[in-house]
């Protein structure tokens, strides 16, 4: 029901919410994200409840390395900014610029994912398998769930970028890119709590 959009004047200032469909997606995606909050809260709660249950296996303080986590954090934070730049370009109808920054976001995400996989492999080497202890299980499931979100987000943006490689910004794909950027920011928010609660608290004792 996009009859209300005056297309002749050019791209509306908020293309993601110009049509009723876009507006629906916008509200619906926020509702979905609020549900994700409670889901991640459950995983965080489980981790926090079980993080001392190491059962003689490796402990948090033995494993976590600050530099690696720091680099991962920086990468993800930066990718959050690049997706903001991309969305601003989208609002101004600068398609090439948006595409460029979305690709940068994508590659930053891939880099992050690479580090995460490297990290997990490393931990398994140190003897922290998934079923070593309750701490291991809850750590892998929390951080792994975040990683799964990253994977899904990367697949999503890759699909969008290939599909709309030459399409320009339309009233159909603007909501899609916008929802992806919301999702990406949300992943970043979760990571902020992961590096605080899992890594820094793990290193800092307590």
């Amino acid at each position, binding site marked *: 029901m*996009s*009859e209300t*959009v*005056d*297309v002749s004047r*050019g*791209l509306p*200032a908020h293309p993601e*919410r110009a*049509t009723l469909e876009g507006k629906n997606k*916008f*509200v619906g995606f*926020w*509702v979905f*994200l*609020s549900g*994700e*909050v*409670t889901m991640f*809260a*459950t995983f*965080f*709660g*489980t981790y*926090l*409840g079980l993080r001392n249950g190491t059962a003689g296996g490796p402990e948090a303080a033995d494993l976590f390395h*600050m530099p690696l986590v*720091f680099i991962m954090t*920086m990468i993800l*934070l930066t990718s*959050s*900014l690049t997706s*903001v730049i991309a969305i*601003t370009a989208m*609002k*101004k*109808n600068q398609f090439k610029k948006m595409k460029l920054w979305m690709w940068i976001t994508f590659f930053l995400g891939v880099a992050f994912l690479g580090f995460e996989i490297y990290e997990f492999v490393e931990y398994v080497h140190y003897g922290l398998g998934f079923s070593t202890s309750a701490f291991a299980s809850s750590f892998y499931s929390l951080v792994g769930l975040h990683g799964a979100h990253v994977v899904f987000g990367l697949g999503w943006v890759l699909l969008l970028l290939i599909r709309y490689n030459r*399409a*320009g*910004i*339309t*009233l*159909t*794909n603007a909501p899609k890119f916008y929802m992806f950027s*919301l999702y990406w*920011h*949300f992943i*970043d*928010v979760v990571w*902020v*709590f992961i*590096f*605080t*609660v899992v890594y*820094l*608290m793990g*290193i*800092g*004792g*307590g």
Partner: protein
Amino acid sequence: MADHLSEPFKKSAMTNEEIMKTQREMRIQFIAFAFMIALTFLAFIAVGAEVAPPGFVISFIIFLAFIQLFLQLYYFMHLKDKDHGWANTFMVSGLVLSIPTIVALILIIGVVKY
């Protein structure tokens, strides 16, 4: 109809005022990003320096995380803008309802009895 929906636009319908506003917003977002980087540094340093007691450090870095949460939600994700009333309602509800979950899973799992 349908053709309009998948047709790219030649120009933007933004008024000059809106462009100015977008640019101002972009500047604010860069500042927010700088803040977030600084907060991250602060959190890592607070833990790495090992000068303060762990109890204090932990509450401090969790406080920093909540500032970052606020910056991301309200600046990067535009929750501060108009037309975000429902988004705010749901996000705040989600965060509020998460608190008892997390507290319960940490405190009342039968290890210590309150």
